[in-house]
């Protein structure tokens, strides 16, 4: 965990090249360009199924980036993140169907409700660490699923139906292509804020807590406060992803989609991408979504394939794809320095 430092986040790194010039105009400019580049993606000869998978992938990106905040940045071992997603999804569904809120109001409401739940899930982290915190959050996570599965107004184990899609005026965004233009900007905003958090004082405090909570406290970091902030920020992402899941056609939620299996899948995205690496998390989410989709044909061996990937990832690249990229960059820099010294000599 301690090795998983995101060097991208180093505010001292001087911007260079084209990006530097863009950042010099305004830090948001590269993201706006990214947004423009991603706009035509669903139009590039894709059928509605691929558009559906693209939406699922982007929702997973939001989830993985959010989990990375609490797990990668702040080093808190949580396995209750999927429960926060469920809270976000069901909150948004209830806001839309029972309170008649439009999606654009249900989404922030769900995020706030989930953030409050995140603060509560974060409380055990004051006194618990490592496997003990994992067990506590696991218990909380499972209890959320169980409460949903026995609560009839939430559809119990039959499922929560008829969640409306977002509307733009009278136009329903219920097609997969239209929904992409709801999900994609939110994923980009989530990524942007993730980088912003990491570069801020809060991000530095998170890393201090992650590396050594006692030393962080000794230097004046309010460890409890920053642990709760990490859980709350992470929960905001989970709430956003949950809400997007709820309103995507056919607008159906079921507690079976928020089990330990889904939590392990989410953890795999972060571990595969590299704990603490934001872009690694994105790649992890994309790759795991695709693995999920591509193994559907091999249903007899699906769990075997999936389990093997987890085992091999942990065995051969414990720092994930992000770690490999780090290693490559460090090696390249080392060789450059050595070459320079040799030339100088």
């Amino acid at each position, binding site marked *: 965990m301690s090795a998983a430092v995101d*060097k*991208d986040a180093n505010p001292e*790194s*001087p*911007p*260079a*090249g*084209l*990006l*530097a010039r863009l*950042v010099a105009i305004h830090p948001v400019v*590269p993201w706006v360009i*990214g947004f423009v*580049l991603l706009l035509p*993606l669903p139009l590039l*000869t*894709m*059928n*509605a*199924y*691929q558009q*559906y*998978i*693209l939406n*699922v*992938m982007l929702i997973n990106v939001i989830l993985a980036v959010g989990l990375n905040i609490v797990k990668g940045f702040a080093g808190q071992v949580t396995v209750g993140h999927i429960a926060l997603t469920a809270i976000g999804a069901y909150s948004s569904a209830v806001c839309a169907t029972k309170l008649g809120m439009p999606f654009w109001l249900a989404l922030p409401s769900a995020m706030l409700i989930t953030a409050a739940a995140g603060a509560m899930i974060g409380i055990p982290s004051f006194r618990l660490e490592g496997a003990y915190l994992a067990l506590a959050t696991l218990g909380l996570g499972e209890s959320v699923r*169980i409460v949903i*599965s*026995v609560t009839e107004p939430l559809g*119990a*184990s*039959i*499922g929560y*139906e008829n969640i409306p899609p977002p509307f733009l005026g009278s136009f329903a965004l*219920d097609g*997969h292509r239209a929904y992409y233009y709801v999900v994609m900007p939110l994923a980009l905003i989530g990524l942007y804020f993730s980088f912003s958090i990491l570069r801020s004082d809060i991000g530095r405090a998170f890393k201090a807590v992650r590396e050594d909570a006692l030393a962080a406290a000794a230097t004046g970091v309010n460890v409890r406060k920053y642990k709760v902030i990490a859980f709350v920020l992470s929960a905001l992402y989970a709430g956003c992803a949950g809400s997007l899941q709820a309103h995507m*056609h*056919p*607008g*159906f*939620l*079921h507690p*079976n*989609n928020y089990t330990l299996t889904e939590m392990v899948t989410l953890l795999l995205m972060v571990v595969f991408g590299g704990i603490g*690496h934001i*872009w690694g998390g*994105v*790649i992890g989410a*994309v*790759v795991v979504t*695709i693995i999920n*989709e*591509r193994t*559907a*044909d091999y*249903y*007899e061996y*699906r769990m075997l394939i999936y389990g093997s990937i987890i085992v091999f990832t942990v065995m051969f690249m414990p720092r994930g794809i992000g770690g490999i*990229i780090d290693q490559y*960059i460090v090696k390249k820099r080392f060789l450059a320095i050595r070459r320079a010294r040799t030339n100088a000599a």
Partner: protein
Amino acid sequence: MNRFVKRASLAPIAALLSLGMTGAPAAAQQDGVIRVGITIRMIVENGLRYGQMAKDELEAVNATGGINGKKIEVILLDDECKPDKGVANVNRFIHQHKVHLVMGSTCSSVSLPMVDITAKEEVPQIVPHSTNASITKKGSAWVFRTAVSERFYASVHAKYLAENVGKKVAYLFTTDGAGIGFAKDYISFMRSTYNVEPAYETQMQETDLDFRSHLLKIKSLNPDVLAIGGQSDAIARITQQSYEVGIPARVRRVAASAASNAPVPELAGDAAKGLTFAAAFTCKDERPIAQAFVKMVQEKYKIRCPDHDFSQAYETAQLIKLALGRAALGLTEATLKADRTAIRDALASIKDYNGLASGPISFCADPTPQCRDGNRTGILVEYTKGGKDYDMALLARVSFAADFGL
């Protein structure tokens, strides 16, 4: 920030590569072939077998020249009883494989969202196993059901037991759809028909292993009937533990239709004797068509006593073949929409089909439960022996009017 650029550039590359992996722009589907997508729960061993059986049954016609000279291609996927997987599968069938018909699913929680998708995309869907009443109440013109709806099931055992055993019923069920549906329908029937309230009612988690504390309370109430709702493993445990706590054999044990699955008598052992359940099929059905089916499953799929999950998967495959034979299909990209409509209309035209179901199966054109819940006959079955060599007997066969329970 240099590294930022490098890694940032990796993301779109990864996304594009990944999208490429999902099978580039839907490859043109072969003309002249009927494509059927099947999504059911195959995470259990029996599921793998009846999934394969349905596929084999449909593709078997290819060996004899197909249906009206057209070959059938089946795409079989597992939805693991998870709605998101079912939704992904049906999206894939419709948009990637451009199927003419969807068959699925096993679990009601998966079939329910599928109905919304097939209705929106106008693709006929036939439900082999799911019993939830809402599936056909949604008003979709594209959905048909082979399984017996839960609105019929509850009354099969409730009426029989109330008239032959007693009306004092204790309900113990798990929080899955099958468990809740079974108990709620039974309670509702007893209230509306006999004005009788439950003697005891509680629900537990489907993953719970020890039900003894509730069973001890039930024992002290001395009910006539112990109603057990849940999936097969929970039913087996509760049945076995009911004897362990001393609930006498004279208290009739009745369970949800999942009791028809082989693991129940095998796991419950001797305790299974006397356990009663409503189902759509029993391997003890003596009709020649039923015995021929049992023999086929025994030989080909190595299942000694196929339950109604097998029979309904098989029956659904037969109904699909029947409808495909009646539909005039163009089977080109241009006629896809018309072909789907023709298959839907052909399914709606099926009347009094006599197959493995205990009664005839009939559909009609109106998008109502009366028209789309094709099988309206349930049977009541009792285990006469538990363990590996379990045995059962048919107690009653009950047919209902199309609008019963609505």
